[in-house]
């Protein structure tokens, strides 16, 4: 800074509106107020976080309560066996069910005559 700057400096300092140092609030008061403000904001954030946690736990709890529980039903083997049967689809073609088609075998007449060296 040169001499002209120094003159400006002095002039501006003199003209600056807040040269009255008596109106400066004490550091202790300002600092205490800041500390209270900080503590208040932390409390507020804490309460908000707590409320959010409570809401989250409530939602999870409700969901767990209302979700359908899967009932496990075991298959009884006897019941299963009693309830099932199988019949061959071709059984209906028979004159009676379970009638053995080969019960009466047709008699085959034995040929004794030959023709050209082979049996007829």
């Amino acid at each position: 800074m040169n001499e002209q700057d120094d003159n400006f400096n002095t002039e501006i300092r003199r003209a600056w509106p807040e040269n009255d140092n008596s109106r400066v609030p004490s550091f202790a008061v300002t600092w205490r107020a800041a500390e209270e403000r900080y503590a208040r904001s932390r409390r507020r954030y804490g309460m908000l976080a707590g409320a959010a946690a409570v809401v989250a736990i409530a939602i999870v709890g409700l969901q767990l309560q209302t979700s359908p529980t899967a009932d496990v039903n075991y298959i009884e083997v006897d019941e299963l066996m009693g309830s099932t049967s199988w019949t061959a689809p071709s059984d209906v073609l028979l004159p009676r069910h379970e009638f053995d088609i080969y019960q009466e075998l047709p008699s085959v007449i034995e040929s004794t005559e030959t023709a050209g060296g082979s049996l007829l």
Partner: protein
Amino acid sequence: MRDSDALDNNPHVSLSALEAIHGQVYGWALSRCDFDHAVAEDLMQQAYVEVLSGSARFDNKSSLKTFVFAVVHNLAKSRFRRIASRLRLLREHATGLEEPIALPAEPDDSGDIWPAVKALPARQRDIIELVFCRDLTIEEASRVMGVSVGTGRVHYDRAKKTLRSRLLNTLSDDK
């Protein structure tokens, strides 16, 4: 090395160091809010909360004074932006209202240097205040304002030229 009264969330800041610059920071805060003492006090408390909580962290890269000045400056800027956007909303939705923003008064011809300073563009006024009234260097002032040193120098030179010409005009008018 950590001072005995260093802050938990800001280990490089001590209470005694903050107390030592308190008056100067208050002066800076005051000029950020058009010399309204209540707003300046609120701004100071906000700045201390930022320092206390560690949201604004001092890492010893500059002087503590520069750092706290920058915190106050940024808080004032965001406060101004918030108020400006509220006013804009108010103006949009309440068309019947009168213009709520009071424009800064034009400098009078009293020959006092203050009106000439007040009439400077904001950044030029800021750098003049920081260098002349708050005893910062141009580099430190630029850091507080969040501009490069080159830009700071330009603002400083322009402010000086403008002030000089205005004061010369006022003196010649008086004669």
